């Protein structure tokens, strides 16, 4: 079964059940995403992929809305670009995007002004360096949820991390802020692998960025690996 619909005026045929995002990508239409990842369940959190669908009152997230027969979709209308630009501008006023090249490229593309929101309270936190494998720098976290998802039912079933706070003050956290070695974390590294911004980073990469040499780092590691007599 296939469905035929219009995307930006172009007729597109998609498999029944395909999302607008999948159909767009197969047909060379660029719809940006931040939270979406092929390995995680789509939660339509970032809303960067919103598109205008004729007959729908509000913008629709392309990552979960299914293509349907005779649907008329606009992926770059004024409403769409305004929403995307404003979300990007709010992100820039909230977090450190220096390690998020894809988001920075989107900001260029949508003409988003990183200083659009003056006097905005930013989400800042100290770098958490509490285990030998990775660091957590939540000043760079854009709450895509991917790490929480792969740590839970999307992959590892470890349930080591969840959320702190609510609303703007939401952050990723452990049980009562325990250090990673005191949690159920098995250091599988999948959260680091899916992090889009460098909020989760391999310890070695982080130390190199901090100016340490490979030799200095390997000494650190040897120290950790030494067995008890």
């Amino acid at each position, binding site marked *: 079964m296939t469905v035929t619909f219009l995307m930006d005026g172009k007729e597109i045929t998609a498999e029944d059940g395909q999302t607008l995002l999948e159909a767009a990508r197969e047909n060379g239409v660029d719809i940006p995403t931040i939270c979406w990842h092929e390995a995680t369940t789509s939660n339509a959190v970032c809303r960067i992929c919103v598109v205008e669908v004729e007959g729908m009152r509000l913008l629709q997230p392309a990552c979960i809305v299914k293509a349907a027969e005779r649907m008329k979709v606009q992926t770059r209308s004024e*409403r769409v670009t305004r*929403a995307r630009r404003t979300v990007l501008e709010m992100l820039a006023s909230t977090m450190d995007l220096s390690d998020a090249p894809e988001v920075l490229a989107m900001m260029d593309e949508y003409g988003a002004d990183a200083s659009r929101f003056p006097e905005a309270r930013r989400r800042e936190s100290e770098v958490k360096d509490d285990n030998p494998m990775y660091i957590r720098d939540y000043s760079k976290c854009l709450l895509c949820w991917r790490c929480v998802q792969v740590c839970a039912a999307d992959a590892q079933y470890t*349930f080591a991390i969840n959320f702190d706070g609510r609303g703007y003050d939401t952050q990723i956290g452990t049980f009562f802020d325990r250090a990673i070695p005191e949690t159920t974390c098995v250091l599988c590294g999948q959260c680091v692998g899916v992090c889009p911004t460098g909020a989760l980073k391999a310890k070695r990469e982080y130390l190199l960025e901090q100016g340490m040499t490979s030799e200095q780092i390997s000494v650190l590691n040897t120290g950790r690996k030494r067995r008890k007599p």
Partner: protein
Amino acid sequence: MTEIDLTPLQPALEKFIPLRRSGLLPALHAAQEIYGWLPREVAAEVAKTLHVPLADIHGVIEFYSLFYNEPVGRKIIRVCADPACALKDADGLLARLRSQHGIEDGQTTPDGTLTIERSPCLGLCEHAPATWTVDGGISTVGDGTAERDRPQSVIYGSLRMLTVNCGNGTTSLAKYGEYAALKKARAMKPEEVVNEIKSSGLVGRGGAGFNTALKWEGAAKADGSPKYVICNADESEPGTFKDRVLLLDDPHRAIEGMCIAAHAVGASKGYVYLRGEYPYILPPLENALNEARAAGYLNEDFDIEIRVGAGAYICGEETALFESIEGKRGFPRVKPPFPTTNGLFDKPTVINNVETLFNVPLIIEKGAAEYRKIGTEKSSGPKLFCLSGDVARPGVYEVPFGITLRELLEMAGGVTGGLQSILFGGAAGAFATSAQLDVKLTFEDLRAAGLPLGSGVVMVFNETRDMRDVLKRLGRFFAHESCGKCYPCQMGTQRQMEILERVASKKILPEDALRLQDVGWTMTDASLCGLGQTAASAVLSAMKLWPEIFKDEDGNAYKVTL
């Protein structure tokens, strides 16, 4: 830290073990009742008992305002600082408490006896400035002068159909009488009951205004078992207090409405999700359920459980409410799928507001044709409005749909002072002015006038009021209550609040009006759920009505292009 004695905890948790994860909120309430807060050891024990991952229980505790992961005072005084209470000097009341006890809002006295909190709307707007005090587990409500163990119900209007048993304490089953409408409904086929509701034209009274029969029909036809009926009593829209009055004074009508819904859709289990800030409703509601069980209205075919919220406006959103019952953070789900097919525990679910359910026995008893004689063609039935702010007689008003706003205000003794504006439909509503006094109070007329009926909020501001301050409080409310799931609302409510705080202190920056619009439009257009989609509604309406208050320091008004 002193060692925590876990021995009283296990017996308290026992009854929640079969519920597993879905017993999490009740278990945390029970644990907090013992310890006053939720120490790490206690949270870990609850997690172990209910088989919930430690990180997840932490996430849940962090989400709900009424759960504490650090010690709080034995006594907690919460003062509502939302618009209706602010008009009655809630800030002054807070300031007096602060200076009396030498602590700031959100702090606890060094001896650990008292915590003072600034609270979102407590649903006591007719008793402004409202306070809710919990002292060693004993809950009282106040109005700045007296403390009571339950709020008084203040009812006016031209009808007494929904409120017939309200105003004189809780109505017992003996006084309520037999469930005549249920008896009649059970003699009808389920589809006949749905059709009767359909013929009545009943539309949901919780705020979204969805056709009730369509929900019922959807759930009745859906595959899946068991099916659920939920009474949404998580009333927390600022300015709304009608459901509090209904459920506290006449719980049997809600139970009867749920029983009829259960018969119509084939549901075997019901839940009342009661707002955490309404603890005084819990004992009379539990008692009413017991009376209904003893009388056989609730039985093994259909029974009702109460779930108590824990301080989260978002849990009034139906899918967030399901998540909350399931023992999770109150994150709204993406729709579709809709609750009628994939609701609580992914099963077909009917979820109705308290006032909506109150209409159900009335419709079945009278018959749809007779019911439709009340109200207008497209907005049938009686409607409750919550009047607060600058009116002579704040309270719940029961009237037929179709009277004008002017008539409603006249019933309330008029505006105290000259009318400046009315916040219509709640924080998620819009502002009306004297130019709209002749609008008829119906879904269709209000829609045409650009005013949402919402949950029936009519909050009045006289000409001496500073609307900037009102807007700031609305901004704070949404920033506090955003769940943080989707980006437009998570960041937009914060940016909106920051700009509105500048507006209120008259320190507006160049282009703040444009920023506010972009944030507002983006939240409205791109947010995941109704909270974000309406978080800018009142603000955008204020920008249209009063562009002058968004001028910068030099008096430059920035172009407002709505």
